[in-house]
Structures are given as structure tokens and as C-alpha cells.
């Protein structure tokens, strides 16, 4: 009999996060004939989103739709995941390595006494089976690991923006939604041990940093909150997002929700511009996997130049407006 490969979908506001489509693509890569792909969707008012998910080629969708799932709460969400695990008995479970996924996955791993690989950036089939690649030592090295056969389910969290998103919808309009089995989980009982009081949402910009293809980040070298303006202009010309170093956040130049790094967001854009950022290891941990890194810094000795593909030694207040106007010319 084939295996069951499960994806735990994740919402951001009233939409699916990009990493969910990436997890579905990862599921497809692990798929062999006879397997089935199922998804679990937890949230509130999910009708439209369920429809989207059912067009991604999955065979079954299990839905936990209730007001108590409006915000992530470990106990309540985990209860849904446990029920899902009982119903679907998955052999492989994929989640995003996000605030939600990195919290839920180890709960399930402990519950099922299985192995988990976190923050996976790629995997490949070899003679010994599948091996999964993940950063260690803040991105200074990469290890490959495999699951021990007996340890199921395999639980995997994937780093956002490292897998291609599934080519959903267009290619799959032919999939008959009517053939996708839908199961609704019963209304959850509230947790007696914990409760969410409020959620202060600060995910500001329209583009989620972890999903952005181009990021313009500023550090302490930006010198003030006004100093971020030229970065914002460049971002808007390139249709990118603005990020920041911890240094810039701590100095009050921008909100912590922009922070890139070990304690902030881990990003993997096509191009990362580091402007007035020295390149501390904790910052590099969050962006060193970017496809192309551009550093702009007045200090030629700044460690950021050691990881940059392209560097300009200069004053960011001079360089960035020039870049913006050149890109504008080029792109119009």
C-alpha cells in the first residue's frame, strides 16, 4: 500500500501562506505512485481557502474551521493536529518552518515519538533513501540527515522560499474538486491550561518578508527612521520588501517585524540588499542563503562583504538614490 503524505496548511490573515504551496510541491517531490497527498487546514471561515487547496492535486482535505482557531494557540491547534494524525495516519508530514510550524511540529513529533527534521532547505533521493539538507551553526555549515526507517511519521518543516511553489490552479483546473474528499473536524473544546488574550499584529508591509523575491534591508548605518525612506523608494521600484538588522530595530529606526536574522525572519530572496549593515553572524543566519547578496557599506572591512556577491564601498545615502533612478530608467 502507498504512503500518506500530509501537508499542514497555514493561513496568514484570510489567505494561505506561500510556504503551504511550497510544502505541497515538496509533497509532490516525495510522492510515488500509489501514495496519496492529504492536507489539514486549520483556521476560521475557510470556505474560499478550502476551495483553493482542493485544486492543488490533493486527494483529501481535512478542515478544522472554528472561531477558536482564529489565532494560533498551541494547545487548541495541537488537539486538531492530533485528531488529524489519528484519522489520516500520515507517513510523512510537511509544515512550514514558521512561528506556527516550528511550534506544532515538535509537539506532534513527541506525541508520535518520531524523528523530525527542522528548517529543511532541500532534499534528494539517494541509494540510502531520501536525505534532507538543513543549515547548522547559524548557516556556517549544512548537514544532510535521513530518517531512521522505523521512525514514522517523518516530520519535516521546510524553510520558506526554498522550494518552488506547486503550479496550482492553472494546471489543475481539470482536477475534479468533487473527487477530493472533505472531512470536517468537530468543534474543539477550549484548552483549560492556556488561552490567547490578544494578538498585536505588526506584519506591516503588503509583502511578507519571508516570501519576498527582493529585499532591501537597512542597518544602523541608515541612522534614523527617515533614513529608511530611500530604501523604501528602491523597494517600491523593484517591487520588493524592506527589511532591517537588529541594530536598526533596537535603535528605534523601524519596527521589529522587519528584523532579519536568527531572532528575526529567515529570508531567501532572489536579491538581498544589505545597506549599512555590518554583517554580524546573527544577521547572516537570516539571509546568507539569499541567491544574490549586494552589500553597500562605507567600511571596506565590514564582514558583510565576505558573504556578498557584489559590493559597493560607499555612502548608502548617495548610492541608493542612484540605484533607484537607474533601476527606474531600466524598468520603464
Amino acid at each position, binding site marked *: 500500500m502507498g504512503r500518506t503524505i500530509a501537508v499542514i496548511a497555514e493561513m496568514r490573515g484570510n489567505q494561505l501562506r506561500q510556504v503551504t504551496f511550497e510544502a505541497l510541491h515538496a509533497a509532490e517531490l516525495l510522492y510515488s505512485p500509489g501514495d496519496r497527498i492529504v492536507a489539514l487546514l486549520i483556521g476560521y471561515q475557510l470556505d474560499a481557502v478550502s476551495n483553493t487547496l482542493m485544486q492543488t492535486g490533493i486527494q483529501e482535505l481535512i478542515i478544522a474551521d472554528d472561531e477558536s482557531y482564529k489565532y494560533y494557540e498551541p494547545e487548541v491547534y495541537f488537539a486538531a493536529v492530533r485528531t488529524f494524525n489519528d484519522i489520516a495516519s500520515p507517513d510523512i508530514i510537511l509544515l512550514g518552518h514558521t512561528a506556527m510550524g516550528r511550534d506544532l511540529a515538535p509537539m506532534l513529533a*513527541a506525541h508520535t515519538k518520531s524523528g523530525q527534521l527542522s528548517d529543511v532547505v532541500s532534499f534528494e533521493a539517494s541509494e540510502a533513501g531520501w536525505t534532507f539538507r538543513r543549515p547548522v551553526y547559524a548557516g556556517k555549515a549544512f548537514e544532510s540527515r535521513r530518517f531512521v526507517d522505523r521512525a514514522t511519521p517523518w516530520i519535516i518543516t521546510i524553510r520558506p522560499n526554498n522550494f518552488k511553489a506547486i503550479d496550482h490552479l492553472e494546471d489543475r483546473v481539470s482536477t475534479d474538486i468533487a473527487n477530493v474528499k472533505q472531512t470536517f473536524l468537530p468543534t474543539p473544546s477550549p484548552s483549560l*491550561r492556556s488561552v490567547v488574550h490578544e494578538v498585536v499584529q505588526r506584519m506591516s508591509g503588503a509583502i511578507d518578508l519571508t516570501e519576498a523575491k527582493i529585499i532591501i534591508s537597512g542597518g544602523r548605518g541608515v541612522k534614523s527612521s527617515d533614513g529608511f525612506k530611500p530604501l523604501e523608494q528602491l523597494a517600491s521600484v523593484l517591487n520588493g520588501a524592506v527589511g532591517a538588522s537588529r541594530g536598526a530595530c533596537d535603535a528605534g529606526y523601524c519596527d521589529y517585524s522587519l528584523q532579519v536574522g536568527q531572532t528575526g525572519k529567515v529570508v531567501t530572496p532572489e536579491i538581498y540588499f544589505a545597506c549599512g549593515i555590518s554583517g554580524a553572524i546573527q544577521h547572516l543566519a537570516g539571509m546568507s542563503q539569499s541567491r544574490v547578496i549586494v552589500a553597500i557599506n562605507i567600511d571596506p572591512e565590514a564582514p558583510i562583504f565576505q558573504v556578498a*556577491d557584489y559590493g559597493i564601498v560607499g555612502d548608502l545615502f548617495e548610492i541608493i538614490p542612484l540605484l533607484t533612478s537607474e533601476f527606474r530608467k531600466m524598468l520603464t
Partner: protein
Amino acid sequence: MTFLSNESAHSPLDIVVLMKQTFDTEERVSIVNGQVRQDGVKWVINPYDEYAVEEALRWKEAYGGKVTVISVGPERCAEALRTALAMGADEAILIYVENSAAEQLDEHVVSSLLHAVLKDQSPQLLLAGHFSVDQGSAQVAIRLSVLLDIPHVSAITKLVRMEGQRVKADRDAEGDTERLEVKLPALFTAQQGLNEPRYPSLPGIIKAKKKPLTQIDALTLYPDFSQAVGTLRTSIELPPPRLSGKLFAGSPAEQVEQLIRSLRDEAKCIG
């Protein structure tokens, strides 16, 4: 007055901090014979665990009680535990694993070993780092909360004691803040921003030498633990070098022009 009544409303707590000794990631990582080179390396308390130790000490100072730090690892980890004792922790436990076996542990095994020791101690407050800077998988503490059947909140930036056994925690969720309330016993993992860890004081260092540090052999807790891992490392390598590492020259305008040309024609990621 208020202070006194506050104190009486809050009973002392048994606090346990999960700690890992890690490779200082400021260090250069090099790989020899498929292993990360360890000789001559500087070992530190995992930075996120330092926040956990500090928070535990602040709670003990406010409400009384006892702070126990516990670690799984080889002999050298005793040094990190001593540092925590010097910061002010009362007792330390090292679940001893031989160096070669330590390389092969996974999060399932580590959390099982911790569970074996802690299940009979029933601490009311457990603290740990959000993740360790070496393996970076953020699993062990959360797994332990499930094994102990207690609630947890991960990546906290604030922890406040309320009436009775209730606690309020701010959780950092990718820049958003979630405010949760949970009932003790509970486990929390510390995110940067929770506090500023203290340095061990000289008297602290001297006192630490006399504080109890108990070693428990992992094999007595879990005889075949090395057979129980769920995942195994097959290889480790350094990331491939960056494509060009090019620094441009010339006037600012010339440099900008060269950068744009390189992004378009060489890296092919624009235009």
C-alpha cells in the same frame, strides 16, 4: 506593604532550566573527516539559554524557590553548568553522554533523557532557549513539554506572574506579538529581548564551586538510547562559496552602473 502581600500571594517555585553548551558561532567552522572540528573551539552557553537562566534567577529573586540547570552532553558541558551556577543557579544536573555518542543524538533522544530525569521532580516552571545556535532545530524543549503533559509557550519576550498559578507570556511570532495566559506548571522558551543576562560575579564563581553538580549516566536512564534516534546525520559540509564576491570601483555612478549590469547580465536576476 504591597510588596509583602504580593510575596505572600505567590508561593516559591521549583524552576528548571534546560541548557545546552554550544560551539560559539562567532568561531570559524571547519570540517575535518566529515566532522566539525572541535579542538581549540570556544564553548559557550547557548545564547538563548542564557536568557532562560537569567529569567529563572529573576523569578527566584522575586518569589523564592530553587533553580536547577540541566544539560545533556559530554563532560565538557559541566563547564557551562558551572557558569550557570556562578550566575546564581542552585543546582546542576549533567546527563552524561560520551563525546562520540553525543554527536549521534537527536531531539527525540535528548528530550526522552530529560523527561526520564524530570518526570518525578515535577518543577512548576521550566525555561529553555528558543533554539540552539548549533543545531538550530528548536525541538527539544517543546517535545519535553508534551512528554511532561504541560502547556508551553515558545519564543517569549516577556513573562509575568499573575494571581495564583497563572502566568502571562508575550510570544514573538515572526514580528507579531501573541499574549497568552497559561497555568503552571508550564514550559517557556526564551527569545532575544526577554532580558539582559547577567555576568557571573567573582563571589558567584567561588560559590559555584561548592554547589551540587550531579552527573547521571545517560545509559542508566535509557540503556539503548543510541538505537532510538529518529534521524541520523549522513554528511556535513561547508556552503559553496559565493559566486563572485566582486567589489566595484570608480565613481558612485559608475559603481551603480556596474552593479546593475552584473545583476542583469551575470546573476540574471533582474530585468
